[in-house]
């Protein structure tokens, strides 16, 4: 089959690779219908997460049709049109039973790598490096899905492929942040990052009852999407003072909930941005956390800050004093997609959650290198490049 692979830092190729096989009884094989680039892929492609082997198949956000099922699969059948959560979760361990699926004890076959870094191993993630399990990704004609009864959800007839695709990760990640940050009716919520995840975190906050939602970014097309398709307000950080804007918008309190959806390659203007870039390039920190810093400083006293963007290791100049003295709740998570996907698909079927606008560039798999270049450089208004194997 054909697949898009990582072949070196900032290099993506399309190659012929072997087809995937059923390896466990709970596996299915999917014929991929849609698979999308995600901002977190850029950390892999750029070498910021040094656990990729040349030839690894990329992609973790996808949907498709079941073409083969393992003998232990009970609820999925050949022919099912399904969307698949990116994290691999067994559904049987204590963490899965608490609906903390991305923390699954049994989903990462390479636990020694992340245990050594973080003290514990989270679950595995499809197409997301050998640190997260070494699973072949979804930018391919076919992909193996472990624990399919737990992580593959049948798409309702009313929901198109183009909409369902983003339930796989962007929407479910956004929902994870908005929900676990404790968003409740009446809250003012600020979201840093107007990519797919940030937009969907904003939409989830609105559906959870937030009174007002504001999204911070600098890319005009993305901010326009937020206003037009999500229905939230926007702040262009390249044009104004974000902290002052948020104080004005909240009667001086600051947002009740602050969701950071940017991750380890955050851009920031001025001296701070240069400082972070230099320290990251010298490997004195592994992530640039300017958005998290700003979220902590913006948040109201006693409010909640959620780290939804991907970080791998250490960051510098973190305002821990503000966290303590303002009595903030600081929380983070990878996506607990299996927890939210049924509800997300219902919202999608009712037209309350639209995602098609995120797919600004739809193209054949063979054009994956061009798709990633457009996506990385944010050229031509690219929000997400979607491949159709």
């Amino acid at each position: 089959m054909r697949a898009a692979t990582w072949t070196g830092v900032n290099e993506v190729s399309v190659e012929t690779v072997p087809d995937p096989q059923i390896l466990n009884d709970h596996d299915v094989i999917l014929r991929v219908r849609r698979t999308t680039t995600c901002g977190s892929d850029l950390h892999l492609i750029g070498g910021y997460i040094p656990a990729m082997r040349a030839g690894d198949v990329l992609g973790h956000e996808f949907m498709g049709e079941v073409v083969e099922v393992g003998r232990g699969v009970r609820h999925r059948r050949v022919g099912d049109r399904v969307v698949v959560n990116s994290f691999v979760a067994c559904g049987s361990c204590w963490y899965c039973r608490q609906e903390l699926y991305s923390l699954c004890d049994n989903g990462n076959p390479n636990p020694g790598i992340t245990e050594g870094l973080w003290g514990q191993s989270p679950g595995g993630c499809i197409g997301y490096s050998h640190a997260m399990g070494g699973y072949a990704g979804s930018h391919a004609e076919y992909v193996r899905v472990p624990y399919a009864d737990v992580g593959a959800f049948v798409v309702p007839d009313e929901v198109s492929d183009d909409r369902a695709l983003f339930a796989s990760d962007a929407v479910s990640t956004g929902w994870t942040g908005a929900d676990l940050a404790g968003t409740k009716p009446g809250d003012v919520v600020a979201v840093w990052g107007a990519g797919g995840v940030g937009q969907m975190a904003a939409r989830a906050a609105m559906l959870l009852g937030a009174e007002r939602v504001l999204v911070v970014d600098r890319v005009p097309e993305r901010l326009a999407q937020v206003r037009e398709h999500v229905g939230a307000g926007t702040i262009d950080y390249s044009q104004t003072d974000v902290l002052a804007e948020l104080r004005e918008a909240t009667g001086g309190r600051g947002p009740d909930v602050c969701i950071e959806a940017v991750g380890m390659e955050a851009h920031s203007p001025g001296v701070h941005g240069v400082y972070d870039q230099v320290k990251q390039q010298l490997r004195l920190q592994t992530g640039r956390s300017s958005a998290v810093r700003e979220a902590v400083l913006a948040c109201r006293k006693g409010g909640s800050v959620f780290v939804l963007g991907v970080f791998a290791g250490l960051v510098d100049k973190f305002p821990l004093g503000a966290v303590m003295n303002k009595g903030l709740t600081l929380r983070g998570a990878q996506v607990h997609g299996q927890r939210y996907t049924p509800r997300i698909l219902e919202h999608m079927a009712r037209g309350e959650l639209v995602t098609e606008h995120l797919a600004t560039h739809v193209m054949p798999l063979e054009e994956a290198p061009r798709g990633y270049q457009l996506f990385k450089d944010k050229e031509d208004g690219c929000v997400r490049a979607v491949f159709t194997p």
Partner: protein
Amino acid sequence: MAAPTLLDRAAGLAGAAGAELLRRLQHVRLPGAGQASTTDDPGTAARRWRAVTVLRPPAEVGTGADLPAPLAALGERVEVRVTPAPGDRGSELAARFREPAGEEDLGRLRAALREAKQLLEVGEVLRVDPQPHGRRAGTPQGAALEGAAASAGKEGVL
């Protein structure tokens, strides 16, 4: 020596280095990197109980030859302790070697505990190989990563 043989040998050395790096990671004393046994000397670390929590009642975990096969295979070399876990979390399944053990032994024990937990909770051990992949460039970094991944089931803080 022929060039391909030299390259194979270099890749083998890099793979072994990757596995060794992973083995040492848990003993590294850097803030944020390396979390386990950092103050234990290797002898003390080797004598500690190593434990997984399994979401099954103690009666289902078994004893002796009735333990899950990967753990039972270690036989009398290890002592096994099964106790109820607090808060309805199932059972704490712990094991340690009766005699002084080396790194290879500890690796086998870590893998056996993880596999036993998966067998009890899910009914099978998750596999990842063979996976589809494209052309593997023969770089030392790539070989080191492969070595680290190959040994990752036997390493970590467990």
